[in-house]
């Protein structure tokens, strides 16, 4: 691997051309895409929230459905960002060769990768916001502090877009992404406090969850949505940002190695 592969990313506003290209495609299918993105989290939230919630008095000081809603805002953002960079990103990078076409124009790979990550974060942001909106309509959120969830969701989207793109850069085919979902994303969703408090887990596992990015997203979003100030804001933001930056750099190095040879 040479120094150019490992070089510091060189960004420009040209990444917005890539963002704009993806948003134009999305706009053609915006309604079905949004409904599809919303159906899954809503089924979890309403099904588990009302069904399971009816058997529980309160969880973490709030109704179970309110508890669950705050977790699902984060997990649906994670899912949406991961799907976008992996399945759609892989199509554009490998199958349709859209990235190659863009790189024949005066746009560099660094900007293509940045555009993809910011785009996936933007799209997942809409998914997170849609869940937040539903929670608000259902009366599960009443504090204006919940508006602070908006930047948290965008940061969460950036983090998981960057991490997912590492998989995209390594992937030989679409099948590869199943490993990431079944071995990383799904277990993370189960142990990061989305469905039940992390304190329910055995102590050694709690140590592991403390290193997972989704845990930190939930730790920020949950208090904010119930009108409280999260504790350890700086730590949570730093962990999410660190995953985003490290994931992005790794994804960039791997895509440079894959495409610029």
């Amino acid at each position, binding site marked *: 691997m040479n120094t150019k592969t490992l070089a510091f990313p060189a960004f420009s506003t040209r990444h917005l051309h890539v963002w704009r290209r993806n948003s134009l495609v999305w706009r053609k299918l915006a309604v079905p895409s949004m409904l599809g993105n919303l159906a899954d989290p809503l089924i979890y939230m309403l099904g588990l929230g009302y069904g399971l919630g009816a058997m529980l008095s309160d969880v973490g000081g709030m109704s179970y459905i309110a508890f669950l809603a705050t977790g699902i805002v984060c997990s649906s953002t994670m899912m949406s960002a991961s799907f976008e960079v992996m399945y759609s990103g892989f199509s554009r990078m490998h199958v*349709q060769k859209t990235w190659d*076409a863009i790189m*024949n124009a005066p746009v560099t790979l660094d900007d293509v990768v940045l555009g993809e990550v910011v785009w996936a974060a933007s799209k997942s942001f809409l998914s997170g916001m849609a869940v937040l909106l539903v929670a608000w309509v259902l009366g599960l959120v009443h504090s204006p502090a919940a508006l602070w969830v908006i930047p948290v969701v965008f940061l969460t989207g950036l983090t998981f877009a960057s991490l997912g793109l590492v998989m995209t850069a390594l992937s030989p085919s679409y099948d590869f992404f199943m490993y990431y979902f079944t071995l990383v994303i799904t277990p993370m969703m189960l142990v990061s406090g989305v469905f039940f408090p992390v304190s329910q887990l055995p102590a050694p596992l709690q140590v592991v969850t403390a290193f997972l990015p989704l845990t930190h997203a939930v730790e920020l979003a949950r208090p904010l949505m119930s009108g409280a100030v999260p504790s350890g804001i700086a730590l949570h933001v730093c962990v999410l940002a660190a995953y985003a930056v490290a994931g992005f750099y790794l994804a960039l190095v791997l895509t440079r190695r894959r495409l*610029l040879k």
Partner: protein
Amino acid sequence: MTRADPFGMNSDNASCLRASGLRKSYSGQEVVAGIDLELRPGECFGLLGPNGAGKTTTLRLCLGLIDPDGGRIEVLGLPVPERAREARRRVGVVPQADNLDPDFTVEENLLVYGRYFGLAAAEVRSRIPALLEFAGLGPRADSRIQTLSGGMKRRLTLARALINDPDLIFLDEPTTGLDPQARHLIWERLRRLLAQGKTIFLTTHFMDEAERLAHRLAILDRGRIIAQGAPRELIARHIEPQVVEVYGDGAGRWAREFGRARSVRCEQAGETVFCYARDAGPLVQNLDQQDALRYLHRQANLEDVFLKLTGRELRD
């Protein structure tokens, strides 16, 4: 023009592309092994070579998409890869495999591609009707890419490469996989571009394409340029002017007993014998009396040069 400078290389700095001592290896194997190239403004330059000769790698090096292991490249006066991105603002590219955007219509493909060059939407829109006309896709502006034929896709890719009104156009095997009608249409369009003063850098393994379009060409084999010059010049320099192709079961025996002695060179490929001669008269006279053999008498062409220089064995 002096002898030391046969192509006028140093007489002006207006060359569109200049590469010297270009090298690139992959896992120890040298794919580009010291190439020197020079493209003059307004010419069509053909890079000819069998599969795997290093044509596409050379093109990617010139576009600054990969870094050479050695050598220097200058495109439109800018050093590559250092300032490749800026150079690509004035370059158009038709890649080997179609990578049109399947999520967009014909017109949207042009519009979105123009944005990658930082062109204003209004400017791109004003160029689109002429480009669609050029590509013969005027009535298909709103068609989806999947509904286009192979020839239409190629023409749209060519139109897309012109969205920034480039000075230099790279075409990587532009007519591979097209039917004869579609190929002739592409050639006609490329001639129009040359008439407008564009410079074209073409890679191909079709001899007729190179012979028709290229003012000058270089034959690339195993990463090296083994011959360079105008098509007619290469034929005159490397090959005898007349060729007689002989077909049939007895062709080999006829060559041994008669043909070989009356030709400068004789080659056999399968059932066919190729006799190269300065005067094919005696060969043809004799063949007219051989009922069992069929033959074709023709002028030597670029394919004969190519096969002589790169050999007849398969490359894949």
